[in-house]
């Protein structure tokens, strides 16, 4: 569906539901936020499940990503502010935020800055802070295709490099590569820089008041498990769950395990 956010046309996938049920004010809302240079489609299976199981579901395209217009936002704080503006535009008072990688920093910042608007956060593939290596930043600036190749290699577990996709016939490595290649050149550098510059995440974590789930892959080479453990300590109410064998691209590599973890967290904290 299209929403007007901060003056620009913004797209959010509703999990295959039509507009009205997706925005039913009586339903608990869940917002999915993608990572660097990606779009809503990385949440396909998970967002469809929530949309069809009693949640008003929006998987967003951040500005300048996928189908959303507007210039890419240059900081995690701006992205968090945009998510809250999107809630306003959609008429959603309070929502759970599910973010992956850059999207998980966005969810963290939004929960710290707008506690009355965020009911819980699920942070997938998170490291706080999230320093980006100079070699990757340089590649993103000088040769985006090379940077995308580096990210794609590091984002998949050893298992993911061979395949065995649960989605029949899909080569997840190729799908990830092609999705990144669709983005405007310069977007990856923008997004990686935003992650790299977000330095106050651990301080902000202490201000979060809602329950948090940290979901990390045991074979994640992009965001380390050690960093996730540090964040879990900094959050007042957090649980850390490790997906054995998963890499950073966990929604594609282990879609069912990701869904089960999110489902348990959302439903449990919903009824708590």
């Amino acid at each position, binding site marked *: 569906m299209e929403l007007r956010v901060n003056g620009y046309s913004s797209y959010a996938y509703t999990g295959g539901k039509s507009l009205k049920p997706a925005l039913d004010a009586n339903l608990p809302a869940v917002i999915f936020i993608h990572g660097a240079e990606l*779009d809503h*489609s990385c949440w*396909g299976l998970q967002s469809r499940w929530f949309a069809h199981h009693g949640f008003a579901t929006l998987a967003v395209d951040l500005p300048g990503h996928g189908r959303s217009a507007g210039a890419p936002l240059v900081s995690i704080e701006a992205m968090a502010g945009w998510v809250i503006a999107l809630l306003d535009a959609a008429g959603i008072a309070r929502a759970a935020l599910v973010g992956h990688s850059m999207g998980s920093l966005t969810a963290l910042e939004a929960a710290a800055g707008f506690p009355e608007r965020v009911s819980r956060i699920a942070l997938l593939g998170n490291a706080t802070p999230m320093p980006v290596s100079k070699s990757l930043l340089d590649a993103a600036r000088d040769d985006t295709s090379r940077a995308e*190749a*580096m990210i794609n290699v590091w984002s998949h577990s050893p298992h993911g490099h061979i395949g065995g996709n*649960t989605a*029949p016939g*899909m*080569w997840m490595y190729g799908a990830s590569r*092609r999705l990144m290649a669709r983005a405007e050149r310069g977007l990856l550098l923008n997004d990686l820089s935003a992650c790299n510059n977000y330095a106050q995440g651990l301080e902000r974590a202490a201000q979060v008041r809602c329950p948090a789930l940290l979901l990390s892959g045991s074979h994640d080479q992009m965001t380390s498990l050690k960093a996730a453990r540090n964040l879990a300590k900094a959050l007042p109410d957090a649980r850390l769950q490790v997906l054995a064998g998963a890499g950073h691209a966990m929604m594609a590599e282990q879609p069912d395990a990701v869904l089960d973890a999110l489902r348990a967290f959302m439903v449990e904290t919903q009824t708590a």
Partner: protein
Amino acid sequence: MADPKTYGLDTLSLHAGQVPDSQYGARAAPIYLTTSFVFKDSDQAAALFNMERAGHVYSRISNPTNAVLEERIAALEGGVGAIATASGQAALHLAIATLMGAGSHIVASRALYGGSHNLLEYTLPRFGIETSFVNPRDLDGIRAAIRPNTRLIFGETLGNPGLDVLDVPRVADIAHTHGLPLLVDATFTTPCLMQPLELGADLLFHSATKFLGGHGVAIGGLLVDGGTFDWEKSGKFPTLTEPYAGFHGMDFTEESTVAAFLLRARREGLRDFGACMSPLTAFQLLQGIETLPLRMARHIENTRKIVAHLAAHAAVESISYPELPDHPDHELAQRLLPKGCGAVFSFVLKGGRPAGKRFIENLRVFSHLANVGDAKSLVIHPASTTHFRMSGEALAAAGIHEGTVRLSIGLEDADDLIEDLNRGLHAAAKV
């Protein structure tokens, strides 16, 4: 810092898409010869039907053995995914039926496999889809043939029968300028000799019956989506960009940014047309693909020796192979096909139709049959078999001489093949 490395073609040919099964640890891909799959519970069943969880329901739509094959070819071609079909013809039909309906138009190379030509020229018009056939070397001709209702540009990486090399980058540019995808039949080149998706093609298919299998025991097709074409931006493909009543109002490009085509092809095309592959066939084709890079290298090595031998032989009037300097696409082939121009080619015998017949009858190693891409060497003389009713004039119009012989070079000892050909050439020269 060195760039991180991905697996090469040899490794992917053996491993892509398959990890040892979790129950018994079988190293080979198990053959899941079952029509259907038991649901764990009602919730899982509903989630599978509604695409909330990935998995298999019914083998016409997907099957674990087929999925290994599909993922493997997608990995080898650099695509986002693939669909296994009952044959190469079924793959071509699935591609077309997914993209368009009655009132649509295709621009196709005229240098096509006969089966593809039949589908486009005679059968699809009955369903309201017309095709204009163009010289694949005539880029202006391709441009001129595009109409407002054109929905696809189609050609073979190596055309039939003259091995016309499709200038994939330039034809793709023409297609994309007009908001159209380029589909190529990559059967003759395989991912070992050319990577069409990297060169600009958007979709490709294989008759896996040929080199991918190699053993000549299984008929099958594979349709690969490069994930590169922007259906939304083109605005010409409502089957992919508008809600589909046949699947709960799904808008396929919203659902999957890069795999909308595959999603519709599987959820509608396999479901409704039903030209699926047997899991047993998928297993047999996987056995072939495991050795594809090794076999293609040998196919090319043998072909080069035989082409050189025939080119110098007194009984041979002419020979057509893009690596020869006099082939019209020699320069293009050096750019796009540096690893080789395939293992199927034609040559013209002196002595016309009788010479061709005599040549065939004196071969012992080459098998006289209507197929190509087998591990065994194959031969056919069109004027006395597939085209036997045609006059010399009619043959010439089709680009075939009375003495034309088509060879598919296999993996035997090159010396044995040359000796066999010499036996046939000697007999033909006596006609």
